């Protein structure tokens, strides 16, 4: 009994050490979004291809959808672009683009060079819609169910692993959810 009491500080130390090791392995840039589980914020923005036309949240509603926030000046976006293309190519869900604080010409050129996987690209030149969506580090990717509720947010570039392990399974699950 006496022995056990002397081991207690060691036990507390080990428990704390484990806690700290776990804490250190978490990415401090991954800030959980308060928007998950909430309806997507309303927006209405001109599209990239036709400035006279608009894309709004109601266009995304009623289907499982993906919104990818990107910019031509963003290195991570370039890095993940082939993954976005792969995602769009599966046809599981439409991928919409939100061109964040970018120049129209630059964005057009960027997509022209790298390929355009987006069903429609909305232009958020001022970043106001970005603020409403809680965007703080492009690229970011949101997944909405068919009721327009945000179910998942990817912060930073999507890796191929994330696409196959997380995003595609979630999209398939969400599609089934609506059918049953």
């Amino acid at each position, binding site marked *: 009994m006496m022995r056990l009491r002397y081991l207690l500080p060691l036990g507390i130390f080990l428990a704390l050490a484990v806690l700290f090791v776990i804490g250190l392995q978490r990415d401090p840039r991954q*800030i959980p*979004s*308060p*928007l998950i589980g909430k309806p997507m914020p309303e927006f209405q923005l001109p599209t990239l291809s036709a400035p006279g036309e608009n894309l709004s949240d109601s266009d995304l509603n009623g289907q499982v959808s993906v919104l990818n926030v990107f910019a031509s000046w963003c290195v991570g976006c370039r890095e993940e672009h082939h993954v976005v293309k792969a995602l769009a190519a599966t046809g599981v869900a439409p991928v919409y683009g939100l061109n964040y604080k970018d120049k129209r010409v630059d964005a057009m050129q960027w997509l022209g060079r790298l390929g355009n996987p987006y069903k429609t690209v909305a232009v958020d030149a*001022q*970043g106001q819609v970005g*603020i409403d969506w*809680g965007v*703080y*580090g492009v690229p970011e990717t949101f997944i909405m169910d068919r009721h327009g509720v945000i179910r998942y947010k990817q912060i930073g570039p999507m890796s191929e692993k994330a696409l196959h392990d997380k995003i595609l399974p979630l999209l398939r699950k969400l599609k089934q959810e609506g059918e049953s």
Partner: protein
Amino acid sequence: MIARLLLVAVLAFGAAWPAFAVENASRYQFDTEQQRERYWDLLSQLRCLVCQNESLADSQADLARDLRQQVYEQMHAGKSNDAIVDYLVDRYGDFVLFRPPVEPGTYLLWFGPALIFLIGLGFGIRILAQRRGTQAQLSEEDRRRAARLLNDEDGEPRQ
């Protein structure tokens, strides 16, 4: 002398640096000095999400600039500090607050240190109480033995 002047200049510049930190603080115009203070005070309590150890008042990040503009516009529109903070928390979560709210999820954060202090205090008091309880009561025999050990065998103090 020149070196000393230089030092003064460097120190003065260093002290004035925070005032220059924000690209053009003068772009935000206020009717009263109180409003200006309220604005910068509020910003200093909000955390920039990009450079996470900086406040919205200090950060040069693009997003911080946009959010400063947001806060400025909302303040001008007559919104209260609480309403502005709510606006940001709705979008970015409690992370934007340097001072997290007191709620069940943060009880450990807020009260943990006090709890650990109380546990330590409890242990300390217990140990002290135990010591006092076991304070040695010397019998006559013990005293004689102590005297023998402290002195030479013949009872004379050691030199």
